[in-house]
Structure formats: structure tokens, C-alpha cells
């Protein structure tokens, strides 16, 4: 059978960066083909070339047996290629219908095209189980549905080949499962699906064939059924990787952080954290599991002194703090020994336009070690930064680079190094491995466990259930702002999933 897509010797450089090195790839029709690789391995670049977003420096693209030139996205669309981007290409204040017809309006007036699109959406909904209200405003839909709109957009344009770039990064586990179901339906209807991801579990769960990229080169292609996660991980990173976290049982000491009756209200006046109370002891990692948006972020921010609570108390190492007053700010919390690795390193953890060494002391810049009075002691700061770069294997090892030019994993290491090296008593860690490569994940997990073994108390928030179960010594489940239960980390994934969805097990039975 003629393959759906054949890429021959695709080459692309951005200045000195050789993003794609003579890539060959053959994708069979009617299959789900996965492409894995670390961030920066060149997957997205390759797909952007296929979708006409970039032009290759060299090489051929063959679609359906015919050699084609893809100059822009319009050409890609006309060859039946559709793409669901990692960051959705949707207009938030448009309705679903408006987003779907954008660029395929079918005439200079809208009336007719809208009617046609409405009928077509209905058909697609029935054929592929892609249900979404065509008149809903996209910005008000949950991300899972927004993604569905992206898929509908591609199908509406008659795509036979669908590229999905890191589609599950923003989805809850249930939404991801639903997406996979849709992908299988699409395949069974004869569509070809290209799935770009760095999550190996997804590759194993849904693909027929998998290709591995490393540092701009295609290193292997094999049937999914004939490979395994450790093998793929090794191919991706180029060395053996430990996928499981290796740790000894915890030996908890005295209570380091004690939270009682904490309630936090957001700007809309809704309680987003409801009467939360727990203890965190030295030498243990407590994980907070929950679907994103159930109050974990606000809880972390309150503990870090960023957000005010309406009631409750926080006790750090025996020192009582009143989080309802403005007197508690991040600087004060840091002084009391609270380290904080924020969930979103771009929004809160780093100023990406700063130099690395500036970010290395951000929040600790008043420390007399880094300057006198109004002046900063740059030599001391750079020395600190260089020390952390070496210890945390931050690459490239140059503290005078802008932070934006580091990869996600290295940026995360910059934040972790900054917080851990200040030797806090309690460390709040939010989403430590979001958008981080497998190799760096291993390193970050090991550092967190080392901190625990050094007798620190660690509170871990993550939407990755695997991460929580792998790292934590105790798991608290958060739903709708409240802690709904505590379980040991060995608890079955299904049970935790139900708790995260707010289903009370006793009530269900």
C-alpha cells in the first residue's frame, strides 16, 4: 500500500541550531504513528515543516505517493493534512462555528458557509463522536473541548492526515482517554494520525508504530507492540534511564508544617480552598493529587505567602503565622524557611528575559551575601550561580545567558537549585516536571528524594498521578477546594482517580 506520508532527507537549521538532520519517515495509511523525543529533539519542527509553517532547507515530502511542495499551511490543508497544535490556534472570543469556518468560509459572505458548516459539524459529530455545541464561545470551553474544536477544524477542511502535537499536555487523565478513543475511531475510519509526544505511556497505549527522535535525528522506528517503555526511553535519551523513582521508606521526624482550617477566597468571591488542614513532617514527601483547578494552586500560593487566606493558621517549625493578614508575604515566608518551586515557572518562577545568574537569586536578592545596600555584588552572585549550574548539571553551563534560551528542563533545574540550595525547612514543589525531558525528570526526582532523606519536609503538588504515586510517602487528594482523603501511594490508580473526580467511594457502593 502507498504510505500516507513519506519524508525523505528533510533538513532544517535555525541559525546555528540544526533542528532536523536528514530525517526519513514513512507513515502508513490508516495507522496511528507516534513520534517521541525529548523537548528540543526536533519533533515539532518536523511537523511544522509538514504543515507548511516552516520550509525545509532540503529534502522531499511525498503525500499519497506524490511528491509535493508545501509552501504554507494552505498548501498543507489542500493536501489533506490537518494539525492540532500544542498551543491551540483558536480565537477565544469566537464561537465554535466561527473558529471552524475561519479560512474555509466558502464565499465572501458568511451566511451560506455558516449553514453548511453547521450541517457538516453535525455529520462529523455523529461519525466520530466529536460532540460540541457549535454556538458555544471557545474561550469558555474546558481545554478538552477546545482541543476537540481543533480536531473538528482539521476534519472540516477534509484532513485525511491529522497531526497532534503534544495533545495531552493540557488534559486530565479522563480527557486524555477520551481523546485516545477518538483517535482510534479516526483510524478505523481510514484517517492517518501522527501523534507527537514525550510521554511514553501514551505511545504504548494508543499507537501502532513509533519513531524516536534524538537531537534532531531520527534514531529508530518500530512497531509499538515489539518495543517497551524502557527501550524507548533509552533511545530517546541515549543512555539507560530509570523510569521508577528509587527511594527508601521515609523516616518522618517532628512536624515541620502544620495547616489548620485554611480557607481561601478568589477574586470572584468563591471559596477555592475550603477548610484545609494537614501536617507535614520532616523527612517525608506528602503529595497532593487532584485534577488541575481544584484549589491546589491557590493552596500552594497561600502557603508561599503570595495569596491571603480568609481564615486558618499556618505553623512552620513551631512558629505560628496568620495568613489572613497582609503581614505575611513571600519574603517573610522564605525567611521562616519555606522554599517554593512554583507550578508555572514562566509566570512565577523565573523572569525569562533575565540572565541565568539573576534568576539564580531571585527572591533572595536582599541576602547580604549578594550585595550591600542598593548595590548587587555580581561576582558573588555569579559564583553562586556557577556553583548551582555545576551541581545541578544545568546546560548550557553559562550563567550569562538569558534564561529564555535554556530548555524547559534546565529552566526547572534553575528554579529547583535556587530554592533547594537556600536550605529551607519546608519545600513546596508544584508540577516539578511539567514540560521537562525524561532525563531531567529522573534528576529532579532524585534531588527531591535526597532532600527528603536530608530531613526536609516536602509538599508536592502535581497533576501527574504517576509522579505523585512515585514520589510521595503519603497522598492527600484534593477535590473542589477540600481535602477529601488520605491514601498510601500504593493505592490503586482507579481509586485515586475516583476520589479526584469527587466520587465518594462509600457513597458509590
Amino acid at each position: 500500500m502507498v504510505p500516507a506520508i513519506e519524508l525523505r532527507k528533510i533538513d532544517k537549521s535555525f541559525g546555528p541550531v540544526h533542528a532536523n538532520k536528514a530525517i526519513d519517515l514513512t507513515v502508513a495509511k490508516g495507522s496511528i504513528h507516534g513520534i517521541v523525543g525529548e523537548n528540543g529533539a526536533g519533533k515539532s519542527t518536523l511537523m511544522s515543516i509538514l504543515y507548511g509553517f516552516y520550509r525545509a532547507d532540503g529534502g522531499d515530502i511525498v503525500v499519497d505517493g506524490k511528491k509535493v511542495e508545501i509552501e504554507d499551511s494552505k498548501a498543507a490543508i489542500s493536501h489533506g493534512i490537518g494539525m492540532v497544535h500544542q498551543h491551540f490556534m483558536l480565537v477565544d472570543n469566537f464561537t465554535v462555528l466561527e473558529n471552524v469556518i475561519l479560512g474555509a468560509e466558502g464565499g465572501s459572505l458568511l451566511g451560506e458557509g455558516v449553514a453548511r458548516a453547521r450541517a457538516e459539524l453535525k455529520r462529523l459529530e455523529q461519525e466520530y463522536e466529536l460532540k460540541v455545541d457549535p454556538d458555544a464561545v471557545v474561550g469558555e470551553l474546558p481545554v478538552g473541548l477546545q482541543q476537540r474544536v481543533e480536531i473538528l477544524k482539521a476534519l472540516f477542511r477534509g484532513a485525511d492526515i491529522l497531526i497532534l502535537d503534544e495533545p495531552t499536555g493540557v488534559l486530565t487523565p479522563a480527557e486524555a482517554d477520551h481523546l485516545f478513543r477518538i483517535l482510534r475511531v479516526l483510524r478505523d475510519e481510514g484517517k492517518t494520525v501522527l501523534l507527537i509526544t514525550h510521554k511514553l505511556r501514551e505511545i504504548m497505549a494508543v499507537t501502532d508504530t513509533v519513531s524516536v527522535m534524538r537531537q534532531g535525528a531520527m534514531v529508530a522506528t518500530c512497531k509499538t507492540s515489539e518495543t517497551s517503555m524502557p527501550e524507548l526511553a533509552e533511545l530517546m535519551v541515549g543512555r539507560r534511564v530509570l523510569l521508577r523513582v528509587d527511594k527508601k521508606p521515609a523516616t518522618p521526624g517532628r512536624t515541620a508544617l502544620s495547616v489548620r482550617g485554611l480557607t481561601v477566597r478568589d477574586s470572584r468571591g468563591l471559596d477555592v480552598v475550603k477548610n484545609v488542614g494537614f501536617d507535614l513532617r520532616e523527612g517525608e514527601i506528602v503529595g497532593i493529587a487532584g485534577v488541575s483547578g481544584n484549589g491546589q494552586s491557590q493552596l500552594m500560593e497561600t502557603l508561599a505567602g503570595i495569596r491571603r487566606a480568609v481564615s486558618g493558621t499556618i505553623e512552620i517549625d513551631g512558629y505560628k503565622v496568620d495568613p489572613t493578614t497582609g503581614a505575611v508575604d513571600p519574603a517573610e515566608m522564605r525567611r521562616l524557611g519555606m522554599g517554593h518551586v512554583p507550578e508555572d515557572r514562566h509566570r512565577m518562577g523565573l523572569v525569562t528575559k533575565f540572565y541565568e545568574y539573576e534568576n539564580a537569586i531571585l527572591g533572595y536578592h536582599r541576602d547580604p551575601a549578594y550585595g550591600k545596600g542598593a548595590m548587587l555584588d555580581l561576582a558573588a552572585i555569579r559564583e553562586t550561580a556557577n556553583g548551582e549550574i555545576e551541581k545541578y548539571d544545568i546546560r548550557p553551563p553559562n550563567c550569562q545567558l538569558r534564561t529564555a534560551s535554556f530548555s524547559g528542563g534546565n529552566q526547572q533545574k534553575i528554579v529547583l537549585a535556587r530554592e533547594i540550595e537556600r536550605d529551607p525547612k519546608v519545600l513546596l514543589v508544584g508540577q516539578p516536571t511539567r514540560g521537562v525531558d525524561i532525563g531531567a525528570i529522573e534528576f529532579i526526582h532524585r534531588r527531591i528524594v535526597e532532600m527528603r532523606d536530608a530531613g526536609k519536609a516536602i509538599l508536592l503538588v502535581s497533576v501527574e498521578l504517576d509522579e505523585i504515586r512515585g514520589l510521595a510517602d503519603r497522598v492527600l487528594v484534593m477535590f473542589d477546594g477540600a481535602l477529601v482523603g488520605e491514601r498510601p501511594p500504593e493505592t490503586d490508580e482507579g481509586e485515586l482517580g475516583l476520589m479526584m473526580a469527587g466520587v465518594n467511594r462509600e457513597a458509590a457502593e
Partner: protein
Amino acid sequence: MFEMMILILDSTVRLSTPLLLACLAGLYSERSGIFDIGLEGKMLGAAFAAGAGAAVTGSAWLGLACGIVVSVALALLHGFASITNRGNQIVSGVAINFLAMGLTALLGQDWFRQGGQTPPLPVEARFTSLDWPFAEALRDVPVIGGLYSELLSGHNLLVYVAFLMVPFTWWALYRTRFGLRLRAVGENPAAVDTAGISVTWLRYRAVICTGILCGVAGAYLSTAQSASFIKDMTAGRGFIALAALIFAKWRPVPAMFACLLFGFLDAVAIRLQGQELPGIGEVPVQFFQALPYILTVVLLAGFIGRAIPPKAGGTAYVKERT
């Protein structure tokens, strides 16, 4: 009292017209994601070109054409700076304002030697009032006569054009393919790009629309409202139009009401100039002249709710590099 109201409303319409044209002009550009504080400069340039063109050719229509050409040229300059070269849109807009201010004065003096003015236009070279059928006959009918003969009838063509542009702009924005894409590119240009549409060409078309409407606005000032170009005759109208656009949250129909409001304040200011107000005495005319600006500050400070500009406004579109 009724008669005075009609007269004030009548001049409200006249005074709102240039604001409305400029405001709708700005709407096209800003909805596409190109901020334009150069409305003032484009209007001024067009007013000069229209005044000069009409004076030289003796035709109001050729004057209007000159105004539009100059305004579109300035708009394309703004487009070239901010779309093609991804320059700062505010800086480019300010530059155009200064350019227009200086050039009109310089060229006016060099060409016509009348202190920066263009020669006074004869009636044939202006847009003059159009009287509606039966306007004279109905003039003395109570209420209807005032409304019809004074308020609706008796304006020049450009006034009607300006107000007809409101439903037209609404239709173009919400009922045509161009409008859909225009709204999309101002919110998320990447979505437009990946849908296979050229962001650059779309934005250029938007600034051309802006140029045309600013051209009409300028021509209105020098060949319809007045009979010659006077140095700096736009007098901040471009900025007021911009404020109106923000009040209106970038929507055409509210834009009309915002412009009418500013026009009304202007009309009241002129009307009450030098008159005693009962119980207050004579209010300095400066107070009324300042009213639009005071209103702008007060309204923007919170009375209209948050004005959310097109999300991609003010930033040049650059394809992401992986």
C-alpha cells in the same frame, strides 16, 4: 426650548461626523491588531490634501480623492513600519502625527503663501448641504418639521456617508468573510496563519480601510465643514475618536453613540459660549471645551467597565520558532 434642542442636535450631528469617520477608521485597524494613534495625523494630512486639491482643481470630489490618497499613503507607511518591519506601533503612529503636522504647515506655506492655510474654496468646490424633498414645505410643521427639515435634511453628503458607514461596518465585520478574518487576526494571528490565510495581507487591507475613512474625515473638515484648510485644524479629533473607540469597546454601533456624545458636548460648548446659565452665571468656555477630556478620564476610570482591546493588538506577528 425645543428649537434650541434641535439646533444643538443638528450641530451635534455635524460635529460628530469627523469623529465618527475617524473612529470607524481606527476600528478597522485596531480590530486587525494594529494600534493606530496616527488617526490625527492621517486626518490632518487628508484635510490639507483635500483643501489644496479642491482649491487647485475646483472640484470637491477631486479634493476628496486627494485626501484619501494622502491618508492611505500615511496608513501604508504605518503598515510598512508596523506590519512588514514589526516596528513599535505607537512610535510609528506618533511619527505620522508629527510628520503630518509639520508637512501640512510647510507645504501649505510654500504653495499658497497664506500662513499655512489653503485658499478659501468657492461653493462649487465644497460639499454643500443636500436638501431633502419637502424639507422646505414641512419646515413649519411642529416637531416633525424641526426633526425632518433641520436634523435629517440639510447636511452635506459626507455626513450621510459617515452615518451609513456604521451599519455597513457592522455588516462587514459580522457578516462577511473579510470581517471574520479581521476579527480573528486581531485576537490570534497564529490561528489565522495556520488556517492558511496571510496575516500580512489581511492587516494591510485593514490599514487601507483606515486610510480611506481617515481621508474622508479629513476632507470633511476642510471641504465640507469649513471652506479651507487651516493649520492644525484637526485639533485633537483623532485622539477623541480613539477615546470613543475604546468606550465603544471596538464595536461600530456603540462607536456611533460615543462619537455623538462627544459631538454633543462640543455643540453644547459652542452654544453656551458667553451665555449666562441660570443660577451659575457665565461658565468659562474652557470648561466646556475641557468636558470631553474630563469625560474621557472619568468614563475610562471605570464607568464603562473594562475595555478589553483586541488581544493581539499592538504586537507584530512573528512565527514562533519551535
